[in-house]
């Protein structure tokens, strides 16, 4: 029987858990991923700027600004900056906060917050046997906006044909 600390160090070198991206309904994207940690830790990493800066955003980008007012109706704002100087701003407000189980926020891209353009992001943290399943459901204001975002998930679902197309285009 593994002790908790050896399970954790095994997790550090184990294969990465896969990310699932799906597009149910007409205006949602659901991202789901398991983590080898209790949900208290995942929730903390998700809501504390000092921790967020260490993981949020792809390689080659940094979370250069991360302001979080963690209370209902509090404001949050991220600035993700790339090596090439490109910048993406995300911001919104907290709607529901129920640590370590649930976080609901509104979300827009860009410097100006327009409530009608905001998506609603629900993050659920479900724990079982010391492991957490994080489920992020983003509901877009229109089906059109969701469809654009969902292309990445749908691309995988399309199977081989689309991947061959990728390869072909990469070679052009």
């Amino acid at each position, binding site marked *: 029987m593994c002790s908790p600390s050896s399970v954790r160090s095994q997790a*550090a070198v184990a294969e*990465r858990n896969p990310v699932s991206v799906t597009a149910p309904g007409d205006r949602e994207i659901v991202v789901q991923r398991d983590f080898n940690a209790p949900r208290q830790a995942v929730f903390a*990493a998700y809501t504390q700027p000092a921790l967020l800066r260490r993981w949020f955003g792809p390689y080659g980008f940094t979370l250069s600004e991360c302001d979080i007012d963690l209370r209902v109706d509090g404001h949050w704002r991220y600035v993700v900056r790339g090596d090439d100087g490109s910048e993406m701003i995300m911001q919104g407000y907290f709607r529901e906060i129920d640590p370590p189980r649930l976080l609901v926020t509104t979300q827009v891209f860009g410097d100006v917050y327009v409530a009608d353009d905001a998506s609603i992001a629900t993050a659920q943290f479900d724990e079982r046997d010391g492991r957490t399943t994080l489920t992020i459901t983003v509901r877009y204001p229109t089906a059109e906006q969701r469809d654009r975002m969902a292309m990445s998930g749908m691309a995988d679902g*399309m199977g081989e044909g*689309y991947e061959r197309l990728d390869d072909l*285009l990469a070679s052009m």
Partner: protein
Amino acid sequence: MDENRLDATFGALADPTRRAIVARLAHGDASVGELCEPFAMTQPAISKHLKVLERAGLISRRRDAQRRPCRLQARPLAEATEWLAEYRRFWEGSFERLDDVLAELGEIAGSSG
């Protein structure tokens, strides 16, 4: 990439028939008649899809004679594909780094126990 073009590209590709048309044209030019074959669709229906793709700059059509072959224009599609790959990598990359942060937090908790 031009935001409007990205929108037009994604709008054009948001339909499974149009994606399949694009995939077919990736293997070479085709006439409208040839493009109808895989689908249980009339030529006017296919032509509607082709108009959307043409407006988005994803295909070009030669205006000669009767066959009017369609050709895939790769650049807008490559740019959109690049954006999609970026979006997916965004999540994968972020969560891999989150794994590492959590592993460190776990070690700290374990060693202070």
